[in-house]
């Protein structure tokens, strides 16, 4: 067959968010890939320059639904560092608990999506059922299943009552047992193994060269985790491990994510049991001094970097967001060449793309002419 352009996207059942891959294929093998990321562009960076610190946090939370707390926390901790503030320990622990719960729900979602991409709908249904347990906990604590709104500059907005802590602790053993089941399943279920093993393989050198981050890089043996290398929140005080794997293919990425699920349950358990008593917020000045910072955070998908520059007013001069998915795209394009078309959804799903994070701007005009 001569070269054929198969356009995967912008609407396609394999994609959870719109992106356009123009795959130039020869039979079932991929020759080349062209990428177009513009479909979720919403104007957030420009809009953030016009809002003061109280109003900009809800905007930044809505960059993405699944990693909403990551964006808000990265920004808040960045501004706090420019202002030179140290938030109280209870606030740090509460932020860590929500962050790890978010990581858990994101990884469970990913596991279901990866199973759905290979047609294994049973695992999809089971993981999303367990995800509901995590969402119930989050809803009890923050009032919402995504976009928690827990952060403000200087601390957190809501406290955790002892009843909430007890209810969360009660749900943890169920999750731990199910995660053990998934570990067993991933290692022994034949159809999953043959679809995941050897697919989208990326060696350690390639991962380093193309700048992969997060579980995608850790599955290729790159031992890099912002929570350990540049500690923030309460991670320096809690015993936990970085999960790496050496396989480098989709199977390795699955194992890393399930390992991280396990670690997250242990971190949450430790934080809930050892929650320090202290106020949850401190007073902050209205304006931030002039300064700039690169605030890094380990979102569920990898390393998230906010570059914030302030100019002495109560607004930021510039917030530049580098999302982990954007960093991983180059490595996806590189490891998709010479694979089968049937594997595209699996490989793309393996980096856990979050396109709402990746493309962030559009322009909405408020006039009487309808949409632009």
């Amino acid at each position, binding site marked *: 067959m001569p070269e054929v352009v*198969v356009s995967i996207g912008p609407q396609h059942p394999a994609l959870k968010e719109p992106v356009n891959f123009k795959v130039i294929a020869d039979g079932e093998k991929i020759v080349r890939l062209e990428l177009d990321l513009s479909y979720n562009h919403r104007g957030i960076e420009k809009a953030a320059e016009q809002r003061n610190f109280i109003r900009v946090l809800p905007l930044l939370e809505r960059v993405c639904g699944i990693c909403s707390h990551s964006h808000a926390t990265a920004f808040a901790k960045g501004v706090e560092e420019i202002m030179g503030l140290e938030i109280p320990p209870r606030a740090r622990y509460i932020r860590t608990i929500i962050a790890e719960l978010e990581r858990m729900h994101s990884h469970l979602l990913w596991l279901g999506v990866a199973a759905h991409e*290979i047609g294994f709908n049973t695992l999809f249904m089971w993981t999303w059922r367990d995800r509901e347990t995590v969402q119930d906990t989050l809803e009890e604590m923050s009032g919402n299943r995504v976009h928690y709104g827990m952060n403000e500059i200087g601390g957190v907005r809501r406290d955790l009552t002892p009843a909430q802590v007890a209810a969360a602790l009660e749900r943890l053993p169920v999750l731990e047992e199910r995660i053990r089941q998934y570990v067993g399943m991933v290692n022994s*279920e034949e*159809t999953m193994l*043959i679809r995941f093993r050897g697919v989208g393989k990326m060696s350690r050198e390639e991962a380093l060269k193309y700048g992969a981050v997060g579980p995608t890089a850790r599955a290729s043996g790159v031992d890099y985790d912002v929570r350990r290398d540049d500690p923030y929140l309460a991670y320096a005080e809690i015993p936990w491990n970085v999960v790496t794997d050496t396989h480098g293919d989709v199977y390795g990425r699955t194992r890393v994510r399930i390992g991280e699920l396990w670690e997250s349950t242990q971190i949450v358990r430790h934080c809930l049991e050892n929650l320090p008593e202290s106020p949850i917020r401190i007073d902050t000045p209205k304006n931030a001094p002039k300064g700039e910072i690169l605030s890094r955070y380990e979102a569920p998908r990898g390393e998230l970097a906010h570059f914030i520059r302030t100019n002495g007013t109560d607004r930021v001069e510039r917030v530049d967001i580098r999302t982990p998915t954007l960093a991983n795209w180059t490595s996806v394009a590189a490891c998709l060449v010479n694979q089968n078309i*049937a594997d595209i959804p699996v490989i793309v799903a393996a980096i856990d793309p979050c396109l709402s994070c990746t493309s962030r701007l559009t322009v909405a005009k408020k006039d009487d002419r309808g949409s632009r």
Partner: protein
Amino acid sequence: MTDPVSILVYIFIFPGFLFLAAYALFLAYLDRKIAARMQHRVGPPFFQPLADFIKMLGKEVINPAGVDWRLFDAIPLVALAAVMTAFLYVPVTGASPLSFPGDLVVVLYLMALPTMSLFLMGWLSRNIFSAIGGIRAVTQLFIYEVPFFLALLTPAIMAGSWSISEIVAWQQQNLWIVFFQPIGFIVALIGLQAKLERTPFDIPEAETEIVAGPWTELTGRRLAVMDLTLDISLVVGSALIAALFLGGPALPWTLNPAWLNSAAGFLLFLIKTLAVLLVISSIKVATGRIRIDQLNDIGWKYIASAALVQVGIVLVINYLWVAP
């Protein structure tokens, strides 16, 4: 049973057209309910497949630009007619009145027509996803048809006849064939799963890769007819396996009043087809989808060799023990 009225009743009411459609919708409901319960969900209510069928008959039919709509209308009907005709030769309450020597081969041929019609729909749809899906459907047909045919022809060799009703009669006097040919039974089940395009073999319809493959441009009444065809193939397939391996609708002894014999046979038919459905549904729930090149690998290396081994064993048994 050679007078025209009873033949017409056989063809159109029981166990022909009406009964077949009703039973197919019932088995479709059971399949979805079993899958749902295994996946920790509630599942559809029992009239759901019928409701889906009626609703889809009323939906708008969209003809893609440049496509010959008369062909698009005709091809699903051809597929439906093929599988319905195939059911006439499968014994439901005893021997089928329309059976003749060689009807096993006719049934197998008719069962392959839905896949060919899917390929045609995919090719005619003028979009790349349907074309890829259609090609995958035919590739899958080549891969699994060989072991499937071999596995279903070994009971014929053992019973010494090419007519399904006579194979059932042979099993009535001897044991069920599954005891002689367990490998063939397993290969036949796998082949049936591949013919019905269910996981792990739903490659032509791989939703997450090629939208819906050859089903993409089917809308309205054409989709209703193709869905019904697939459900009826499920019935025909399980009835075929129940007849060839599990003894079909026949007790080891004949009961005296003829109607009691038929009723008992019908009950056995229901039980055996439900058992086959249970196995097939479990396979569908418990596995993911494999790729077409992996199917090629597995199909020729393991499944076809197993079928050949089974043929060899049957020839040996035939020579040594079964009277010619």
